[in-house]
């Protein structure tokens, strides 16, 4: 177990390094000069541009820029946002609780809807209930988040006046208001996750229900409920856990469109604004943080496999 953990951690560092090089290189490929953006309406003044470039080290060779950035990151300094001059680490830390809350709520909604519906749909295969659930799931997958989001705002905020249309209040400041501001975006994101989880749970359940051990269990005269939940579902959950952690990781990476629509100040909005403003230190910082989250989550997924399936503990 310890060796496994060490081996996995050993893989993390090169992964992050390669990723940081990639992000750095990709940003250089992106058209649009950050100095021009920062100069705004003063963009025509060569003196202003030169000054910005030298201040941000943009006039140095690329390798030097990268090493400079890496050196500072290794010392825990992610640099400053070029646009609002706040430390990148502070920006990321301030967005983390927001994104974590939204991601958790969406994930809970997604799992609570997706897994049971997937099981039901497999058990009732090719019956009207199965078709209905599949239809709804297809709807959930195909519905663009921004459209669903705007429709919900128009219905629940503008027409009915039940929920605030956008914005965010931290959970510790005012829990009720915090839930009120996040429930719509969480639902929008959650339905997407639910649809995907439902489809995969259904497929995994169908394959599990066709296995010999299920037939044996039934032959032994076990109650159907017990067969489905104790025997089939437990085995069917492995791929669902993998997928679930990936989906959760995606949610934590920031839901760009949903955050934009509901004006939730999370990771997605941070990185999109940073890209449009060519605020490179923020882009790099967020990508690195996201990668770290993904790596951690995939580690958790591995540990979860072991918890669910004892056979995997030996490898």
């Amino acid at each position: 177990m310890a060796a496994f953990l060490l081996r996995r951690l050993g893989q993390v560092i090169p992964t992050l390094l390669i990723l940081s090089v990639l992000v750095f290189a990709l940003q250089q490929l992106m058209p649009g000069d950050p100095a021009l953006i920062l100069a705004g309406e003063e963009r025509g003044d060569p003196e202003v541009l030169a000054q910005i470039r030298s201040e941000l080290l943009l006039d140095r060779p690329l390798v030097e820029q990268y090493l400079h950035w890496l050196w500072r990151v290794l010392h825990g300094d992610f640099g400053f946002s070029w646009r609002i001059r706040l430390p990148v680490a502070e920006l990321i830390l301030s967005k983390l609780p927001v994104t974590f809350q939204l991601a958790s709520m969406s994930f809970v909604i997604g799992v609570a809807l997706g897994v049971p519906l997937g099981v039901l749909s497999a058990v009732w295969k090719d019956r009207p209930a199965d078709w209905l659930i599949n239809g709804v799931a297809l709807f959930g997958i195909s519905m663009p988040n921004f459209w669903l989001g705007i429709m919900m705002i128009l219905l629940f905020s503008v027409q009915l006046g039940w929920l605030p249309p956008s914005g965010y209040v931290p959970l510790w400041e005012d829990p009720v208001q915090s839930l009120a501001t996040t429930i719509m975006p969480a639902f929008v994101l959650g339905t997407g996750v639910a649809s995907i989880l439902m489809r995969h749970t259904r497929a995994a359940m169908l394959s599990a229900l066709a296995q010999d051990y299920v037939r044996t269990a039934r032959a032994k005269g076990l109650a159907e409920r017990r067969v489905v939940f104790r025997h089939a579902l437990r085995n069917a959950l492995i791929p669902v856990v993998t997928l679930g952690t990936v989906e959760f990781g995606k949610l934590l990476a920031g839901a760009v469109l949903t955050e934009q629509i509901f004006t939730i100040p999370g990771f997605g909005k941070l990185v999109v604004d940073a890209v449009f403003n060519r605020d490179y230190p923020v882009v790099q910082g967020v990508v690195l943080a996201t990668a770290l989250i993904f790596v951690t989550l995939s580690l958790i997924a591995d540990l979860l496999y072991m918890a669910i399936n004892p056979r995997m503990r030996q490898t």
Partner: protein
Amino acid sequence: MTFRRVLLTACAALGLGAAAHDAQAQGQNLRIGLREDPDILDPTLARTFVGRIVFASLCDKLFDINDKLEIVPQLATGHRWEDPRTLVITLRDNVRFHDGEPMDAEAVRYSLDRHLTMQGSFRRGEIGIMEAVEVVNPRTVRIRLRQPSAAFLSQLTDRAGMIVSPKAAEAAGRNFGNRPVCAGPYRFAERIAQDRIVLERFPEYWNAAAIHIPRVTFQPIPDSTVRLANLQSGALEIVQTIDPDDVAAVRRNSRLRVAVSDELGYQSITFNIGNGARAQTPLGQDARVRAAFELSLDRNALNQVVFEGMYTPTAQPVPPANPFHVRAFQPEPRNLERARALLREAGVQTPVRVELTVPNNPDLRQVGEVVQAMAREAGFDVRINAMEFASSLQAATRGEFEAYLLAWSGRVDPDGNTWTFIHSRGPQNDGRYSNPEVDRLLDEARVEQDAEKRRALYGRIWEIAIRQDRSRIYLWHRKNIVAHTARLQGFSVSPDGLIRPQGLRLQ
């Protein structure tokens, strides 16, 4: 059924909580929806227009402008020119900064010097003509200019005229913008990046009697539909800029109001005349081809189709509300006959291929498509190159364009709308248009103090640079369209599009 009941109860409970929260906020807090998150709140380093909206509540300036675009004193009480290069400004008495420090001549000298010399200052271009600031006495400063300037005073009506607390600025250095200390009606309370900026009333404000709302909150909401939904549901009191096609819906709603004013800037098409290889096209090299292009366009139809007829068609960079607008200089009506004749005269092969670079947003893309359709009838084959904004700016600067549709937010003084763009040394003359006579006239207009003579100079500049050389096509002046709740009283939108808190009341 049970699930539905639970859902409804949950929604209602959340809704009630939210409503209670709202009721508490009403009358106490003016919530303003901005179209993007402002950049740093340091008057020396700030660049964005939305940032200026925040500054209107946070930092007073030496001078301000009124609805007629006249310059009026704010922290100053008056000014006089000792000679064309020496400006004396007298200051208001008993003004304090948010940290309690006195706002005096020394603070003015400090702030102007800071704007001029601080590394990364965006004000240097605006007041770079300033040579020295002298403290005459605590209530008077004398500013010496390197050369006469008719536009200098107007620069002090914006961020270059904002006075900051020297003590706070010295202590915070480059981080001053994270906690700005000025002499405006509201002081900085908190900022959560991309979420909100909160200001609270400054009791010792010199004009405190005009401030009736205890708190102002600015919330960046990029999506215009969502911004409007926030206003409709009562989550905001004011939204900055709504789309022209939303105006009708707002007017139908009895709880909402719309305030409209002409903005200071314009929308134009820049031609690449001399910036690199891409200028070597019939369009770039022959004014007759550019004239034909312009004559193929119907500005009124364009305005009707894309902007519900809300904007003001124009042929010049200075809007009608500005005293230097030249009334006689009107757009030519669409004339396809003449356009085709000009192309024949120029001896070019039709269709003439033109690449029109357009910043990638739905409205401007639509403008591009209408231009494409109109120009086709005169013999142009317009291809639209929709580019993300940052990329399009870079392309324009490098001369990687043939025609570029771009807006300018505008300045109070006409020099700010012209010199930079059509003078051969103008830093934003992306098409590198150059005519020595236009340069001479622009330099002359820059220093001419007599308004009548100055207007005549601009009239001649338009005749040469626009009508004769066709360096650019000016299409329309946009409008500042601000929607607000009917509970807000005393609101009007000024031509600069800023939201000034003085005199506003919430019921």
